[in-house]
């Protein structure tokens, strides 16, 4: 942290290498789009660079970065929702989008998990990604999400139940065909 505050490029590189993929994957799974994940991820890293000289010694960088990423996602989602309301009457509703990594999943199980995550409402998806995938404790995720630890635990419990239910359902094939 001290090296980063001093503006040492190598300190930034170490953090960037360590957290780049995790942060980008979180944003891609939240937005469902790679291009939006690119934009938001870039803004997160720029904000870290701008803020670095003023960061406190005890700042937990992973939590800080996920907080900024989540706040940027929420702002972008609100803007998109307003825009969608303005043109909503002109466009048909979107079908449930596939996850951004579903096509790249190496196994059928991975593809199903990606799809189940993508189908979750954003409030449940974010808590499951932070706690279930990133391994944050609910009290840490609560700080990022701006909620109480108890509310976070409840959301997490509900999100897990929704995923379990989605994964327990039999595979659906178009028009009742079997593989």
């Amino acid at each position, binding site marked *: 942290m001290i090296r980063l505050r001093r503006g040492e490029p190598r300190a930034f590189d170490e953090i960037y290498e360590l957290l780049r*993929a995790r942060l980008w994957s979180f944003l891609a799974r939240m937005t469902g789009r790679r291009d939006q994940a*690119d934009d938001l991820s870039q803004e997160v890293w720029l904000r870290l660079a*701008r803020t670095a*000289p003023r960061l406190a010694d005890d700042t937990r960088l992973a939590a800080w970065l996920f907080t900024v990423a989540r706040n940027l996602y929420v702002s972008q989602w609100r803007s998109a929702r307003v825009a969608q309301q303005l043109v909503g009457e002109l466009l048909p509703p979107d079908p449930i989008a596939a996850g951004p*990594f579903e096509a790249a999943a190496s196994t059928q199980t*991975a593809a199903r*998990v990606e799809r189940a995550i993508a189908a979750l409402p954003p409030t449940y998806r974010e808590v499951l990604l932070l*706690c279930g*995938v990133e391994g944050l404790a609910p009290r840490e995720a609560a700080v990022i999400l701006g909620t109480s630890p108890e509310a976070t635990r409840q959301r997490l419990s509900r999100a897990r139940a929704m995923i379990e239910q989605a994964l327990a359902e039999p595979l659906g094939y178009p028009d009742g065909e079997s593989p």
Partner: protein
Amino acid sequence: MTDDHHPLDDLLRAQLVAHEPAPAVAAATRDLALLELHHARRRSGWRYRLEAGAMLAAAAGQLIWVFGTLFGNR
């Protein structure tokens, strides 16, 4: 109320691997951020503040001179 760790988490971590942005995007983001880091560091330094203060003082002096020339008593 749930436990902090759940068996489902192991499945999620095993299946949901972290993906990378495109190499060109990752490199561009890094370069931009490093440039911003350099500027942020410079902005927070005493030398930059001194230079900025000197430039502001010089600009204020020139403004006063211009107003003095235009509207001052002769």
